């Protein structure tokens, strides 16, 4: 009985001389890992254009259905979301959307400070989500790799050879 009590007090005594683990948030900001799953952003490609092509993969991957998109076509043939909404009231920051994103547009950030007093402010529209950088992948441009003539003439993408002549029967 006495032994157990002294053992317990010993643990307490030892802890008193250790460095405390408490972070003095918000005065002191915690260092979160680079791959932390915080606030979601929509990034831009190296030319400064929106990366998102409104493919709907994030919205279908989302287990809580918090992403709503409406796709549209710009005059130059670029596919873009005319509206893109994430309802952060519902979002569980699972990161499945970012994993699904084929154009690396949708990315998770380390920002977790999103608290609001009004839930309506947690409904983020496209302009709230768009940032002016490429996030973790500054160099990737989907349209240069896609084989579709939008940012370049047909056959002049990174993986393409110039258009072949379908009228030719030469070997």
């Amino acid at each position, binding site marked *: 009985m006495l032994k157990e009590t002294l053992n317990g007090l010993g643990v307490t005594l030892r802890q008193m001389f250790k460095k405390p683990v408490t972070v003095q948030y918000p005065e002191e900001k915690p260092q979160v890992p680079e791959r932390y799953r915080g606030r979601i952003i929509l990034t831009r490609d190296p030319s400064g254009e929106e990366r998102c092509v409104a*493919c709907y993969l994030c919205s279908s991957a989302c287990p809580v259905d918090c992403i709503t998109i409406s796709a549209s076509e710009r005059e130059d043939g670029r596919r873009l979301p005319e509206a893109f909404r994430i309802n952060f009231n519902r979002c569980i920051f699972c990161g499945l959307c970012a994993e699904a994103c084929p154009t690396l547009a949708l990315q998770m950030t380390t920002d977790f400070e999103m608290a609001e007093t009004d839930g309506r402010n947690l409904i983020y529209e496209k302009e709230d989500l768009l940032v002016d950088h490429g996030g973790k992948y500054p160099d990737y441009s989907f349209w240069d790799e896609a084989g579709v003539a939008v940012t370049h003439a047909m056959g002049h993408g990174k993986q*393409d050879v110039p258009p072949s002549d*379908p009228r*030719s029967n030469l070997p």
Partner: protein
Amino acid sequence: MPEILFDGRKIAVPAGTNLVEAGLAAGVPVPVFCYHKDLGAVGSCRVCACTIKGADGKPPRTVMACMTAAADGMEVTTLDKASVDLRRYVVEWLMLNHPHDCPICDEGGECQLQDVTIACGHSQRRVPTMKRTFQNQFLGEFIQHEMNRCITCYRCERFYKDYAGGDDFGSTGSRDRVYFGRFEDGPLESPFSGNLVEMCPTGVFTDKLFRYKSRVWDLEIGHSVCPHCSVGCNVHPGSRFRELQRVRVRDNPAVNGVFLCDRGQFGHGYVMDPERPMTVRLQGESTSWDQALGTAGAELLGIARHAGPASIAFVTSARASVETHAALEGLAEESLAGSRIAHFDDPDREARALVALQALAAAGCPPLDQGDLAHVDVLLIAGAALVNEAPLAALAARQVARRGGKVFVLAPGETYLNDVATVIPAHPARLAAELGTVSAKLGDSNGAAADDPRLTLARALAAAKAPGILLGSDLVDGPAFQAGAALAKALAARGTAPRFGCVFPGPNGFGAAAMSAKPALPGILADLEAGKLQAMVLVECETSAWTPAQVEALKQLPLCVVLDYLPGPLHQAAGMFLPTEATYETDGSYVNRAGRLQAFARSRRIGVPVRADFQGSSFPRDYAVEPPLGDVRVAWRVLEQLRQAALGKAEARTLAELRAHIARTRPGWAPLRDIAPGSQGAMLELAVLAAPQGSLAAFPAAGSGLAVFRIDRTLGSEVLSRVAAPMRKMAGPPVALLSPADAKRLGIDGAGSIGITAGNRTVELAARVHPAVPEGTLLVPRDAELPHGLAQGAAANVAALAGAR
């Protein structure tokens, strides 16, 4: 029946079944690209590899399932290493040149290539070579071309050229440069080009109207029936965010199979037309449903009391559902008993449909429905260039010829079947005589070679096991309907099993005719013009066939209630306008041209689409339970509510109650009780159906001037589909067709401009020479303006206009 072991499952399949079909029977879907149940097997894609052994004593070997017939004792495996590896390599080399554009491809989500690629485990392109590319073509307003995605399965060409008979599309080039497209940019000419979207196993051909709108998994997809002609093809309308975004085919083997015409697939623009009236209006002011229905009910009752129910008329049309027709009849009861109902909005088409129904009953043989065309060996199409009136029937008729059957066309203006059919361009006024000649010659089998195509036709019909006779609508007069039925009867008397069918005007033309007791519209219109009417309720109909005096009299009526979903002059003229739901937005049923009852169900929540409510680049941030302008009601429910208001009924009948009422009170309509959307439909019992009264005069005999016939054209003349701009653009302006001899007489070389004079009015119209138009006739598309009062087949003075070409 060979018995085979398919992946360990023992099944017996009919002899000659290929291993893909056998696999489906065994519950093993073998992956395919080039194989299609309606296009057959060509073995070009190499993805259906499987391993067989045991049938012929040879060692086990890997074969293409689509090219191998099941043989007794055969053991088939699809999951052995050799087959799996082969499929994986095939997919890998298909992916060598496939672009990396799935995220922006509209096929994504319903792409066979995507599915098979993932199923075969391919995820990384191991070869660092560059990808070959192609220039895409402009293929019109309906189809988007993206050739880089092609995997060379040849399905598009096999459908477009072989199955549908198109000649402006095909393949060129060699090795990995095989290219599918037109010789040069331009709209696809085949009226069945939309099927390329479904045929292509990947995204080379996609729906331009659906371009960059949604993923298939986000769509609300319903079971519906195409409202653009009387064939009654089954469709899946897909909508999202209250916007109807696309229409795709629903496989109904009894009707359309997996095909749809461009009118059906791309004619849905009227649903989302920005001009579409969506609000209840009373004397030009918007008002509430209760207010409007109460006013209308009270006024109807008042007019019935003071002026008598005979001064009230109800008119609907062949595009209104069976339930709407029945609900309208429910209005003419009790205090309103004695008011009149017309089930058609065009007197000519009313007479035509009633007489067609009489002919179907008189023929005494089973109706020739779309699915039955697959069993016909000799087909006679009389009085219609079928592709204009019932496009899918023309596609099925082409398959009769492709199967080795014979097709005869006894009509002017044939454009679609002339390469596979014997075309006899009969003058519509002589059609009855021509059919009589064929009937008379059925027994004429003396061995002399038949120079006369009519004799060939008679002999073919007499020798056929399952002859089919299909009459059109616009170019058939009363005697010709009777002659057609008599021909079917004569064939039956000779011991064959003929089938006889007619084309009806509108998707529910058969239903409207079966609901009618006798022609009612001419009387109503005469009374309207004479000022004897006080009130009219017009449900989903047009006044384009009415005279200007009748339309003017309509505007002067004390009470004019219009229920519709199309904008137009009627919507402007109506004292009271009640917006109704279009076919894809509602529940109801249609009866197709052979008497097949088919139910459709709502697939779109009506209201202003979310897209129209965007605030900049954001979705609307205000929330409401009811969508804006969402209170649009289905016509039959509005009529039931009007009945409540006018007749003091306790409550409006539901869909099931209405259907049960029709099934109970009308002989032959019993199947209506149990029809469900998404089924094959059920046939009305033609034998017990009450045949309507009515007659249709013969066309005037050829005289001076050209006999003018209004005809449909595949695209552009049908009232719903022509609302949207892409359809009008693809259809082009209406062009009248005339015979080479008449053209020569008028001094028109190939194409020109003509003036048509009747009465004291002249209209101008573009005209073109057509070799299969008989002398003395002028075929004018229904959407072209004609002098009013010009009856079908009546002679008009036609002169060439100088200048405009």
